């Protein structure tokens, strides 16, 4: 195999870097935020188009966003283990 074939082209490297940027930007260590946000917007859109009461429609998205943030923050905290665990 020639050296040119082994070395990725500048376009390929740029495409990989571009993809990696968006992956880190949107997913990173917290895929639940992306999935949760998409689900929250989808649920709010369903409420809007199902003719739900205005108060429900207005409150749904902010409440769902708060739930996503809380779940992700609790998921992100380090586990707490008793000092005695694993010492036997």
């Amino acid at each position, binding site marked *: 195999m020639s050296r040119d074939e082994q070395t990725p082209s500048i376009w390929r490297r740029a495409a990989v870097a571009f993809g990696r*940027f968006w992956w880190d*930007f*949107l997913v*990173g260590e*917290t895929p639940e*935020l*992306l999935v949760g*946000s*998409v689900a929250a*917007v989808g649920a*709010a*859109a369903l409420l*809007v*188009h199902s003719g739900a009461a*205005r108060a429900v*429609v*207005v409150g749904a*998205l*902010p409440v769902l*966003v*708060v739930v*996503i*943030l*809380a779940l*992700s*923050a*609790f998921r*992100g*905290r*380090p*586990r*707490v*283990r*008793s*000092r*005695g665990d694993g010492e036997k």
Partner: protein
Amino acid sequence: MRSSSAVLVVAVFLASAVEMVEALTVVVAVGVTRGWRSAVEGTVVAVLVLAGLVAAVGPALVHYVPLGTLRVVVGGLLLVFGLQWLRKAVLRSAGLKAKHDEDTIFQAHVDELSSVEGGGTGRDTTAFTVAFKGVFLEGLEVVVIVLTLGTTEHRLGLASVAALAAVVVVGTVGAVVARQLSGVPENALKAVVGVMLVSYGTFWTGEGIGVHWPGSDATILVLVAAYGAVAWVLGRVLSAERTGGERAGGVHVA
């Protein structure tokens, strides 16, 4: 100035300032260890490329993408990005995540750059590349924020000026004190920006899917206050849980 424009200016300015402080850390580390000429050249080229991106992509988004679609997509991006910032801020305020420490990052860059041969007063490819990459990567996040907030509000010019002002302010202060800005309360700023991005994201995705917010633009201010309060409460709850666990003799396992 409308309330949404005021929030836009503050959000873009603070987000840009935070990212520029991080970029400045890299540039100063390059300048100190490898010489200033290539560090400055790399910085200038990166800023020009980023400005070109905004000029090329911004007007195209505004003219060719329907406003409803733009608001849902852009609002969704802001929502995800803002939630990432806010989550980190909550965990940092609760003491569950290490705070961003520019001094440590600066020293790591200096150590790494010192081990590479070359440097001095002439043109230095390593210095140029590291400075360009540092400014470009940090700046890319600013570009996304400027494009998303600027296009949905149809205030791309205002968003660009706010970002440019942050670059000038951070650059000037950095040049005057001639070091990275470790004294800037970066973690607190990130929390504020996170709250603003989530608020904007909620507002614009809501508008895009057909939610009629009471009070129109003023809703953004209500969302900022509500999300700020929620983030504060979450931080306190997690902090109490951490100290409770430590008092009970537990250890945190990452």
